[in-house]
């Protein structure tokens, strides 16, 4: 699966192990010169690890919030500038879920034999991770929009469809705007997957998740709050992804510091030119 195909899968279909594996895990392995054997590789997010260390070809430590570790063939993580890969069968997994009910397992490495190779810059992994979340969020927001519009045009109260009420229409406009913003952000970040576009894209997607999610639940009313309604899985995932690979504070301060370094004369060129003008570190 190519880079562009994998991002498109995430955007169109939602969470997909093969696509995420292609974008993150197999990318890490390829860089390290390790054979991935087309296996599904999950990646431990760099910021949720405890005392991980690589000694004499063996990994020790704990990694938290590892997506679907229980089902992966191998688990990859970055330790001290190296990509380290272990077989899932060799580690102890404590199953955990995020607020969407998706597997974010704790992986305990107890002197586990590992293969390793040169690692990417941890921040490059973090940015790629953010890119996967931007694609997922843009796709989910499109579906949230569809659900909200359909419900507003079908559900009748007071003898009319609720979409005929201006108060409800205002929520739909918010959802449409936020879905559109996340959509163009995902397009731009996929086209130019560099610091500025990823930072700005994740910021916009995070904000959209919050405001469109809130507006959509208001349109759907009590029905949208049930476990069985499709809206709930979309919003729960949006809220979880909002925190993964950088929340608003993380990306706004990084982006802001970068444009501040560029100075006043570069501010507008940065808005139009993105990473071609300013480097987000």
């Amino acid at each position, binding site marked *: 699966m190519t880079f562009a195909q994998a991002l498109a899968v995430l955007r169109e279909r939602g969470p997909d192990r093969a696509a995420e594996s292609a974008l993150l895990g197999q990318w890490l392995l390829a860089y390290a010169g390790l054979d991935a054997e087309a296996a599904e590789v999950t990646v431990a997010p760099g910021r949720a690890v405890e005392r991980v260390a690589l000694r004499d070809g063996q990994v020790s430590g704990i990694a938290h919030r590892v997506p679907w570790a229980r089902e992966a063939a191998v688990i990859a993580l970055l330790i001290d500038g190296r990509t380290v890969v272990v077989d899932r069968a060799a580690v102890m997994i404590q199953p955990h879920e995020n607020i969407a009910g998706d597997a974010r397992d704790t992986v305990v490495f107890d002197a586990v034999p590992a293969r390793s190779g040169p690692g990417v810059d941890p921040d490059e992994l973090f940015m790629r991770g953010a890119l996967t979340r931007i694609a997922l969020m843009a796709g989910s927001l499109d579906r949230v929009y569809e659900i909200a*519009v359909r419900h*507003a*045009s079908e559900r009748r109260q007071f003898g009319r*469809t609720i*979409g*005929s009420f*201006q108060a*409800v*229409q*205002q929520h*739909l*406009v918010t959802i*449409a*705007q936020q879905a*559109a*913003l996340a*959509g*163009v*952000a995902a*397009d*731009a970040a996929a*086209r130019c997957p560099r610091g*500025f576009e990823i*930072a*700005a*894209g994740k*910021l*916009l997607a995070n904000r959209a998740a919050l405001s469109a999610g809130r507006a959509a639940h208001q349109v759907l009313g009590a029905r949208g709050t049930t476990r069985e309604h499709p809206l709930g899985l979309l919003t729960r995932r949006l809220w979880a992804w909002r925190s993964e690979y950088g929340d*608003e*504070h993380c*990306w*706004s*301060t*990084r*982006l*802001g*510091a970068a*444009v*501040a*370094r560029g*100075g*006043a004369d570069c*501010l*507008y*060129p*940065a*808005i*139009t030119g*993105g990473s071609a003008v300013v480097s987000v570190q």
Partner: protein
Amino acid sequence: MLRFAPSELTDAELMLQAQVRDFLAAELPRGSFAPGLGMAAGRDQAFSRALATRGWLGMALPRRFGGAERSVVDRFIVVEELLRWGAPVRHHWVADRQTGPLILRYGSGALCERFLPAICRGEVSFSIGMSEPEAGSDLAAVQTRATRAAGGWRISGTKLWTGGAHENDWFVVLCRTSDEEDRHEGLSQLIVDLHAPGITVRPIAYLDGSEFFNEVVLDDVFVSDELVLGDVGAGWAQNTSELALERAGPERWLSTYLVVEEYLREHRGGDERAHAALGEAVAGWWGIRMLSLSVARLLDAGQAPAAESALVKELGTRFEQDVLDAVWRLVPDDPDPAAESLFERLLAAAILGAPSFTIRGGTNEILRSVAARAMRV
């Protein structure tokens, strides 16, 4: 479904952007003029003429009428650079943005000959004659009335919030020319000389004390038949398409840009709180600009993206206010409108200007209804 297609500038468009930036840096360097906030910037006819010489006024108009036959996106590129620079655009603003395209679309050949070349040269200026005391968001309620006279019409009524009526040459007046069962029928657009006998212009002081807006009283003003724009009775549809030209452009999200740029210039890097505000602002501009650009592409493709325009204007104007609020919170004191610091003066001007962002050109409440209609709910 709403259409916001991804879009990038072509090499030719990027070259135009670079040309405009070079022009501004050379002709209007920072520090050499008092920059303004977006559309509320200064008025300088010589500057407008300099733009005209470059072919940057009436850009999308045909060559036979003095235009450059360029695209909506090309105009977008020029306009966004002028606005973010705080350049004095007020003389040509309305004529270039809406009156020119409106006359081209609906006006007779004679009307096009008379006005379009002059607009493209930066010679004539226009105001907008839509709102009235009893017709704000509900424009079909206009009471200004034109009645038949020998060789033309005699028009009486009162227009309100007519920006620049005291300094411009003409205004396009939406008025009633007949009474019909459907009040959207029987309306027409007349081009009226702001210096004609029977016109009285009275200033309306805005929050900041400035007197840009006016009440214009028309008392039996004669308008010749040649100055009827489009068809008599077709004013509603024409006016609606004129409003579409007013929305979604860069002026709907750049009104407070310069406050942020000057903050950065005067405060340098700033602390983490400033960085967070700056990052949020830059991300917002980056995203909204892409949406706004995609609307310009739709216009170039011959589409009529009324709903998309309304969505972008609604989003952009609220964003302008949010950005302002974020920068305002970074400074400890309320700004002095007469401060030596340009940042402080711009901040003061923006705080007082901000309430109008979400009202002018269609209130956000109206825009949301326009957009919702397109969602078919």
